[in-house]
């Protein structure tokens, strides 16, 4: 067996110097006259170990991380090519509890295979879902997806099968599959990891969607902040086309499906499905009124399945193993798994794919190991910039769509951002409005104007100007935006703001940043209209 080494080509691994490590390994291999193949795999999602170098041994893949180029000669001295002992040795990668305890369905291959090798993809279970789909009617494919309980992983959690059924039943000469890979939420990176680490699973998922609804053309809309993912996806599509997985005769079935990528241009709002469609068509990314639903009048006015990347990438395993297999994971109405993404001020950040149901505490403490700074957790934002800010006291809520809604939060795309006790929540609330103002498409007034007035009003509170009156004003504005905005950007921006005020009222008393104050903090005054007051 020739020596095989794995050094991730994932953007986060590159950000920690993975390519320099490859150069150092190559130089050392040449110097010692050793032949070895270096595979640029995706990341396993254990980012604190990146760059994580793996070597194939008879016992399995042994990891070393984090590796810096300067460590490489020492690794060779330690005999790492055969799994030798070294300070950075992390043992058999599959046995690392962080990874072993996960339930990797959608990310089953990510970090393991050569992302651009179709042979590797197939050897690890790839294409089985598509092969089965090719033997089924569109109706039967949709039924599998419906029965699996899969809900949209972009955040809205709409049942994927119902969306597909609407498109399937629509009569049109041309239908489209659109993948939303405009993963703009801070704290999320699952789409990016999968495009870089297992791009064929998305291609397979989109092809299955095409067969299900009768669409022959697909587009992946990728944000421009992800240049590596964009390049990798393009390479994978070229490979797939060359191998006959895409084109006029997919896998020799006589059925047609082809796809292209499109690059976003730095507009967060284009993650909203109708804005994305506008952008794909070459227009300003302003949102569309619904109805008509994109399922009936979507891209170029045609029936369109528009799904989040993780939704589409979860379809191959559902078709391969059957709906019951997938549905057996999860709790309540949240079926299957979600790749949770743990980031921010966290010791062991990464991708954690689990069936719905673990508590935030399990993810943050058991997996994450607490904050990176070593200070106490003060706030957690789940679901991106439009998600609620929660105090550490809510860490025992289960990660389940409905459980989160019960506590006025949302899971969204599964991003979990941790803040330590140095965070100023009034500043975070102001940022939420400022971000909305920066990214508003401008179509509706509550979002366009409300975001700016909101940022100004939080600034007044922070300065101690008419604090009580301005807090009343903020709550009123929040209701107007929530109920009066056309889409989730304006409609959900109040969520981080109001949750910050509710859970961290001491930061909104106009006394300046909480951590700049003397240690003996006076009793915070109660907020008018806050749930605490209403309960008395």
């Amino acid at each position: 067996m020739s020596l095989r080494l794995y050094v991730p080509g994932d953007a986060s691994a590159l950000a920690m110097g993975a390519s320099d490590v490859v150069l150092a390994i190559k130089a050392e291999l040449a110097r010692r006259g050793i032949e070895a193949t270096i595979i640029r795999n995706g990341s396993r999602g254990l980012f604190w170990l990146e760059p994580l170098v793996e070597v194939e041994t008879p016992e399995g893949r042994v990891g070393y991380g984090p590796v810096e180029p300067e460590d490489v000669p020492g690794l060779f001295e330690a005999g790492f090519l055969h799994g030798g002992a070294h300070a950075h040795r992390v043992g058999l990668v599959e046995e690392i509890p962080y990874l072993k305890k996960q339930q990797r369905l959608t990310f089953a291959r990510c970090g393991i295979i050569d992302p651009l090798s179709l042979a590797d993809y197939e050897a690890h279970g790839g294409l089985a879902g598509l092969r089965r789909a090719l033997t089924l009617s569109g109706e039967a494919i949709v039924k599998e997806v419906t029965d699996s309980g899969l809900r949209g992983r972009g955040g809205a959690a709409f049942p994927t099968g119902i969306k597909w059924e609407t498109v399937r039943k629509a009569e049109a000469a041309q239908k489209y599959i659109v993948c939303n890979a405009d993963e703009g939420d801070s704290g999320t990176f699952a789409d990016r990891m999968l495009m870089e680490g297992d791009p064929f699973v998305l291609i397979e998922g989109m092809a299955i969607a095409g067969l299900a609804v009768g669409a022959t053309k697909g587009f992946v809309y990728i944000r421009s902040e992800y240049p590596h993912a964009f390049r990798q996806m393009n390479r994978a599509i070229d490979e797939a086309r060359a191998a006959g997985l895409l084109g006029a005769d997919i896998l020799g079935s006589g059925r047609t499906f082809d796809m292209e990528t499109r690059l976003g241009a730095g507009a967060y709002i284009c993650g909203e499905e109708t804005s994305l469609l506008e952008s794909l068509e070459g227009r300003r990314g302003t949102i569309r009124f619904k109805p008509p639903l994109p399922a009936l009048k979507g891209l170029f006015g045609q029936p369109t399945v528009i799904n989040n990347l993780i939704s589409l990438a979860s379809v191959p395993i559902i078709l391969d193993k059957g709906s019951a297999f997938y549905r057996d994971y999860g709790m309540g109405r949240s079926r299957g798994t979600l790749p949770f993404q743990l980031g921010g001020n966290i010791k062991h950040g990464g991708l954690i794919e689990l069936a719905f149901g673990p508590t935030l505490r399990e993810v943050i403490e058991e997996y994450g190991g607490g904050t990176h700074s070593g200070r106490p957790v003060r706030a957690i934002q789940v679901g991106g910039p439009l998600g609620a800010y929660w105090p550490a006291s809510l860490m025992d809520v289960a990660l389940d769509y409905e459980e989160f809604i019960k506590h006025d939060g949302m899971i969204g795309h599964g991003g979990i951002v941790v803040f330590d006790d140095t965070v100023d929540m009034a500043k975070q609330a102001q940022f939420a409005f400022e971000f909305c103002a920066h990214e508003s498409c401008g179509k509706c007034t509550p979002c366009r104007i409300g975001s700016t007035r909101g940022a100004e009003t939080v600034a007044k509170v922070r300065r101690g100007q008419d604090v009580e009156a301005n807090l009343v004003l903020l709550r009123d504005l929040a209701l107007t935006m929530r109920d009066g905005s056309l889409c989730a950007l304006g409609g959900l921006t109040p969520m981080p703001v109001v949750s910050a005020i509710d859970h961290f009222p001491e930061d909104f008393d106009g006394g300046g940043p909480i951590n700049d104050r003397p240690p003996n903090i006076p009793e915070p005054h109660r907020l008018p209209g806050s749930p605490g007051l209403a309960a008395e």
Partner: protein
Amino acid sequence: MPANRTFDEAAIKAIIADMRSLDGPLMPILHAINDRLGYVDQRALPLIAQELNLSRAEVHGVFTFYHDFRKAPAGRHVIKVCVAEACQSMGSDRLVDHLRAAFGIGLGETTPDGRITVEPIYCLGNCALSPSAMMDGKLYGRVEGTRADRLVRSANLAAAGDGR
């Protein structure tokens, strides 16, 4: 980034001709021009409008809607600092201060000699290794302390290599 910044009508027309048959060609065309020139020259807009049978107002509207399409060239090297929540939690403010101390400029500014632009970006998808930054398309993670110094050194090195 090696962009050829001189406006060349023939080259712009070639880009348009190359991409006009795409479904929804306007965004890819604007990206291609932005990549080639380092910005989108106003003189390109009527050419695009004419070739795609759009009004100049429509093309202007799209061009100005998206943050990526530059109205004027940036500095020769662009450092994008992530200032979204995950990086905020890890002190992206400190990184901005660090760059201000090194280059004398804040977010959205360019050094007077045109060497370096520092600008904000909202999430680079590297949230488990915050704070993050991207220079000339290369991603940097855990950009604090000595790693922030390294980013500054890389920027200075890149700038010193200009024109050689």
